[in-house]
């Protein structure tokens, strides 16, 4: 081929960046383009709770300096949304009407916060936590010593909760089936973990006992700005409500690409999708496991980074299967404290 191969990576998170770096090392002559909807270059999402400690300068969160992308010849296309992928023609269309051709495509678009359909209409009354600006907006809305209501309470949310407690906020967790996501806990052990949360300083409300969550409403004048109303008629008040119900893969743009999708992009252990030019890595993909004959999601930054690297290796000629490197078990230490492997990033 006279023109250099064009590797396109969608997503600039842990998986995407690891992949881009690996692609650059293993295929020095190629073009590497990384496309992301974010306006920021790659930043550390696990650091986002720092926003609540008063760290407001996004540049302090960024992993690589601008020169990194120039030096590594990684074309970083920010504020750019992919709307359509044509797997047969190997082109993708960007929202602003530009078409980009690729030789190989790695989808590492990650996941966005999952919102149960029955709560969708209350989204404007809640504060998300996916992007830097969301974190800033939540921090802005929170008065000193304020009260945060965490709905669900997945491990991302609980991690944020630890920081919030540390900084002196009041934090209430409304526990339901997504609490501790993505960890799966046996029903009989659940009360122990809930108790552990309380020990950590969380106020815990059992959503199930209240008939699950019914509605989020704006507070009346003179009251706290938000209230959560339960089916049993009871309600609690807080300054902000943040939903943490786990995540759902961000792959709207892959619909119609011809690539198989269930909840995530379905990939072989090599991380290849059903299109030989298209791979996926990170929270967006469901990986086939020959061992238990099922598709699995794997989470946590170590797994995600390993997936980015593996996909890039396989794109550039290796043929290695996926082996998870971070375990996903939640543990209760002897002193009754919760330990999640996903919190071990510092």
């Amino acid at each position, binding site marked *: 081929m006279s023109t250099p191969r064009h590797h396109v990576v969608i997503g600039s998170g842990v998986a995407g960046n690891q992949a881009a770096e690996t692609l650059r090392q293993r295929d020095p002559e190629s073009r590497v383009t990384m496309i992301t909807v974010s306006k920021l270059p790659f930043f550390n999402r696990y650091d986002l709770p720092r926003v609540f400690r008063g760290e407001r300068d996004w540049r302090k969160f960024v992993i690589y300096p601008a020169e990194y992308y120039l030096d590594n010849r990684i074309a970083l296309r920010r504020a750019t949304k992919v*709307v359509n992928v044509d797997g047969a023609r190997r082109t993708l269309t960007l929202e602003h009407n530009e078409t980009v051709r690729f030789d190989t495509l790695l989808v590492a678009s990650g996941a966005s916060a999952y919102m149960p*359909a029955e709560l969708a209409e209350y989204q404007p009354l809640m504060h998300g936590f996916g992007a830097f600006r969301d974190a800033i907006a939540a921090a802005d809305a929170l008065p000193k010593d304020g009260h945060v209501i965490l709905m669900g309470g997945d491990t991302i949310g609980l991690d944020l909760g630890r920081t919030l407690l540390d900084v002196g906020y009041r934090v209430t967790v409304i526990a339901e089936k997504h609490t501790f996501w993505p960890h799966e806990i046996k029903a009989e052990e659940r009360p122990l973990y809930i108790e552990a949360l309380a020990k950590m300083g969380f106020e815990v409300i059992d959503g199930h006992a209240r008939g699950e969550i019914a509605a989020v409403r704006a507070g009346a004048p003179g009251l706290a700005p938000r209230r959560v109303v339960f089916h049993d008629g009871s309600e609690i008040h807080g300054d902000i409500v943040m939903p943490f119900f786990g995540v759902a893969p961000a792959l709207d743009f892959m619909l119609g690409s011809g690539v198989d999708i*269930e*909840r995530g992009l379905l990939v072989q252990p090599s991380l290849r999708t059903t299109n030989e030019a298209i791979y996926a890595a990170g929270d967006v993909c469901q990986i086939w496991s020959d061992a*238990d*004959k099922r598709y699995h999601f794997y989470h946590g930054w170590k797994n995600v980074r390993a997936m980015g690297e593996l996909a890039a290796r396989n794109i550039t000629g290796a043929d290695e299967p996926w082996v998870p490197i971070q375990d996903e078990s939640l543990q209760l230490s002897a002193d009754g404290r919760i330990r999640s492997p996903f919190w071990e990033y510092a």
Partner: protein
Amino acid sequence: MSVVVNLKDAPPGSVAGIEVAYSDDPRDSGWVAKNIPCQHACPAGTNIPAYIRAIAEGRHGDAYEINREANVLPGVLGRICSRPCESACRHGWPGNGEPVGICNLKRTAADMKHAGHRITEKLYSPTGKRVAIVGAGPAGVAAAHDLSVLGHDVTLFEREGHPGGMLRYGIPAFRLPRDILEVELHNALRLGVELRLGEGIGKGTATPVARLLQDYDAVLLTAGCMAPLPLPLEGEWKNRDPADVCADIEHGLPFLMALHRDEKKAVRKRVAVVGAGFTALDCARVASRLGAQEVIIHIRTAEEYIPVTKEEIFEAKREGVRIRGLRTPVGIELDADGRLTGVRFVQNRLGGWRDGGRRQAIPIPGSEFIEPCDTLLIAIGQKTVNDFLDIPVELDRWQNVRIGENGMTSVKGLFAAGDYVTGPTTVIEAIGRGRQGAARVDTWLMGHPRRRKVVRIMPVAGPLRERAFDFIGRQEMPTEPPNERIRSRTLEVETGLSTETSHEEAKRCYLCNLNYQIDVDRCIYCRACIEVAPRACIKLVEGVDMEADGSYGKLREAKEWNRVGAIWIDNNECIRCGACFKVCPVKCISITRNEFVEVDQP
């Protein structure tokens, strides 16, 4: 501009004082077919831009009548149509935003027409011919209406106690209120159709088909597709219908039909539904209303590929219904008392594409797992039954009756139409097929087709739109709160657009039936139109591809001045904003309304 269409006096001449032209040139009929994607996608061929324009002008009654020309049940379809038109709508094409809420507007036309609205029927002289129709579902009702309009005496036989077929017995009232259905069925059948309810036909009844063929000049079978498909299980359950064995397992359609015959039905706490169509969704939503605490629809492929509207899935989810993909049921788990405890599934992967745009699901050996549940509703599809036929009729390999190009079965005078012939489809398709069947019966009875489709070309004084209309957002259908709905089995979920929102929605329609053309002889190539165009819709062209059917294909653009043969509006890209028309210095852009009309063929 207000135009009264009077087809009886149509060609040639004028409509309401405006001179019109009629064309059957393939370039013109091809234009209409391609450029009005909604109408093209509608199995009944509804003239959608025309009725939306009528709504925009506040003429809801006219909009209702325009609908009725293609579909005798606008108020019904305005609620439960599968909306192939909206998937095709130009406003939903990439970069254009969201499709127009065509179906919701159809409902608006029905709901907001004047209380004393008069229905127009263009009646033909009586022919003295008698036609029997078997089955009063959507296809049968549409056929009965058309044949009676055409002057025939029609008798409609229905086994159940009320007409409507799937509309009445399959679709829950929270999606289709029964009063709406009653009125529209009555309107369709009141032109002298003799309705015989509770009268089955064929073997074991008082009215064998052979007898009908003697008594009537033609018989049309529109018996639908009402027998549930059995669930193909494996192992000990192979070739057994679990519904026969366990009271906690039922087929979805009979379950719904029983419910709608006002029989008492119940579900237990954890309901599993297998199947991926509207029936499966309806079963799940009914189960929620019957007090189930957990309702999960299990599908073989993935949500992306199931043939129901996104709105329907969203509403079901808001009512607490969950969908789980990539699984095929292979067995049933019963406890010692014979009560259901779970369904055994096998994990699937996705395979290639099947006909009709569905994905294949391929089971993965050894990946079986059990989903606990205590009620199972099976809604994986329906098939026709032919065991009532008392005379030999040739069948095809799917065991449906085979019909020829004239719509007739292998038995002279015996016609068939609708889902009974095609297998299960949608309501709008059944109506389209029913009308087609009626036209074929009429052609056979009269010896020649009595109507013909041509393109009517009518000048329009100016763009009927503003560019600003393109930025109006899609008006969402308001609904009852999920909590309220669950408490009632009949409370209509969708509450209907308001006068204001329907007017806004109607303004969004591009009016694709408007054809913008540049008079090449008068054009000075000044490109003023291109400058104001909102998209790449006006092109410097050197050629145009012709399609095999004689219609226009792609425009070939010229990059160099000496290759520019014409400046031309690519009607495929055009969003009918009218900006070019307003700016042309030499007024060489014309607008015509091009639409199919039926004209009499004496």
